[in-house]
């Protein structure tokens, strides 16, 4: 599928997401009137379906049915679709209806990012020269892990909001039925736990992939920012999960750590995408996602080709 068409579709989805987000916030302020609640649920379901359709269409048009993800934009649409699905699921859980008001802006951010990835920084993955199993393990691990962290961060923001309201002694029924702190903390911790496990697998896949590269690539690769940041993200989530059981890393601190973890992950993506391939040394398949550009994988116009 052409990138301009993908970009236009994604722009429309971004607009719909932001509009739905406004509705959800309004519903939150007006104690979730049934009409607004229904409209938000329908819009979110349509977004999930549209994301799946877009992903399927891009996969079909690529002509390579063994590779559903061909570029970073596909990964972002996949994360957005799964996040939308998770938010729709949470809307049906007891007292978790309002979490989507916090998740929809993040969904909008993912779609907007996907627009950028399709329109301005589009780089197809170069998968043919890499070991397929480990590369797919790496990609799936990193994307699904990121999804879990996004869900955890949405829950963490909701946690901080509810915590602030409770500390301010606001009426619990004042603006919609907010989820209890305990549920949100559980969601933060479970998301972080699952995300951490999946990300670990993804990073392991990346390490194995790198180990199959030349010595020069490895020597260069282990020194780069990307791996340092990936290691930092991994370490941060390890802290979130394990230090929960100490006295000082529960509640508000765990929520902030979760937010910091996602911010670091997004920074990793951003830096890896922004840094020149030579200076960053991203010329092999790295553990965290996206835009590893190999010196020997330049396209016919001399531009870099993304391999991971």
């Amino acid at each position, binding site marked *: 599928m052409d990138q301009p068409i993908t970009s236009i579709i994604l722009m429309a989805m971004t607009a719909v997401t932001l509009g739905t987000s406004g509705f959800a916030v309004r519903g939150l302020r007006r104690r979730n009137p049934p009409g607004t609640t229904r409209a938000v649920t329908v819009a979110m379901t349509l977004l999930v379906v549209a994301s799946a359709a877009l992903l399927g269409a891009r996969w079909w048009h690529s002509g390579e049915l063994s590779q559903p993800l061909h570029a970073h934009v596909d990964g972002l649409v996949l994360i957005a679709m799964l996040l939308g699905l998770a938010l729709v699921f949470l809307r049906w859980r007891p*007292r978790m209806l309002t979490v989507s008001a916090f998740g929809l802006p993040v969904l909008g951010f993912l779609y907007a990012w996907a627009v950028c990835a399709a329109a301005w920084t589009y780089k197809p993955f170069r998968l043919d020269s890499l070991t397929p199993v480990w590369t797919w393990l790496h990609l799936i691990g990193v994307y699904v892990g990121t999804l879990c962290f996004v869900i955890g961060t949405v829950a963490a923001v909701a946690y901080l909001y*509810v915590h602030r309201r*409770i*500390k301010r*002694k*606001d*009426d*619990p*029924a*004042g603006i919609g039925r*907010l989820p*209890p*702190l*305990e*549920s949100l903390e*559980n969601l933060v911790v479970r998301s972080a736990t699952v995300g951490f496990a999946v990300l670990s697998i993804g990073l392991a896949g990346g390490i194995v992939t790198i180990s199959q590269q030349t010595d020069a690539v490895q020597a260069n690769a282990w020194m780069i920012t990307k791996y340092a940041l990936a290691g930092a993200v991994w370490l941060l989530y390890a802290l979130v999960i394990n230090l*929960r*059981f*100490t*006295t*000082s*890393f*529960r*509640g*508000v601190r765990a929520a902030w750590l979760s937010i910091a973890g996602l911010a670091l992950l997004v920074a990793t993506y951003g830096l890896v995408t922004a840094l020149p391939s030579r200076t960053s040394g991203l010329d092999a398949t790295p553990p965290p996602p996206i835009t590893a550009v190999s010196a020997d994988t330049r396209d016919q116009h001399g531009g870099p080709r993304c391999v991971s």
Partner: protein
Amino acid sequence: MMLGINHRTATVELREQMTVSDAALPNALQALSQRFKGCECVILSTCNRTEYYIARESHAEPTAEALRAYVAQQANMPLETLDAAVIVREQDAAATHLFSVAAGLDAMVLGETQVLGQVRRAYDAAARAGTARRVLHTLFQQAIATAKEIHNTTDIGAGRQSVGSVGVEFIRQVFETLHDKTLLCIGAGDVGKVVLQHAMRLTPQRVLLTSRTTDRAASLARQLRLTTDRGGVRPWESLDTLLVEADVVIAATGATQPILTAAQLKPLLRKRRGRPLFILDAAMPRDIDPAVGSLSNVYLYNLDDLRPVVERTLAGRQGELDRCRAQVRGAASVCINQVQHQDIGRLIRALRTRLHDLADDERQRTTRKLSHCVSAEHTRQIEALLDEHTRRLINKVLHLPLSRLDDTDPEAPLGFYAAALRRLFDLDTDQGQEHVERHADPTDPTISPEPGT
């Protein structure tokens, strides 16, 4: 007259200062009635209000100013501080206020029933102390009856009826479920019982009770059917351990000083390993130092924090509230009329008794003088004539002033007339009541057997 402060007019600190504990109530009533002799008084002191209800003759002591000064002195606070928060109601307004309070229309949690029990206990205490007599008996009995009727016939108390039910909502804001949590109640009084009953609807895993008086805690445990496997009574000395175990704490003791400060709780939080702690301070004066609420993972609520919920409840029940207020105004007006008619009825009897006593004396004197001039048979006839003459004369003399006291004129200053008659004729209606049967004239339309009914 009613003079007092409540949760709308005064801060928690001021309310704490004005509180009259159950133990101190009899003495406070006696002191008040000693200070202002002849007046009736009831002191209603709850967690949300302290109000003095006074019944006295018009223009008699205590005046509102005198009572304000007395209350400020008793509460050991400057008069200016009290003046900034105090409200004074007289006559119908005072009665309407009492009726509203008893019905829960003036309560922090609209329509709550807890305050009705507190009104009843305040009245009982005053009756036992002998400071609630004729007027306040009628007023409080009618207020309690009206409150019951309102609760039975309207939906004003449906849903969140008390501090307990609102507190439970706040608990649910922190915890998803209490099935795996421990609930600790500190104090075994009525407030603690009410809140605990509501919290137990969330079926906590364990319910622990502790109180300085173990017997009361044991009694409450029996009432709530707390089995040992679900918790039970723990000694007061183990409070620190209990605070480590508990997830939800309900504090409702009668202590005059905080039983838990931030400095005490801080080291315990480390042992709790960061588990959230919800504390509902339902006591007045407060049991928990407000600084506790600033500690990490501690969520402290006191009675004033329930105000937003109350306002929302109020907004949702405005229509029902208007209906109840109209009912309260009507009932209070009828009651005040009844009280005034009872008073006027007694006054008329006393006045008539006084006049007849005078007439009897004069008739006997006249009869004695005539007995020397006429035969015994004539004396009896003359005596009967004099008797009839005197009765007719008294009735005619009384007819006009008594018709002025007729209740059909709503503008008639009955209280003023009554006070004037009492002073002019030096009437003591309590004594007059004893002689009323002797002089009651069944043909006199100005006296009804049940005045005011």
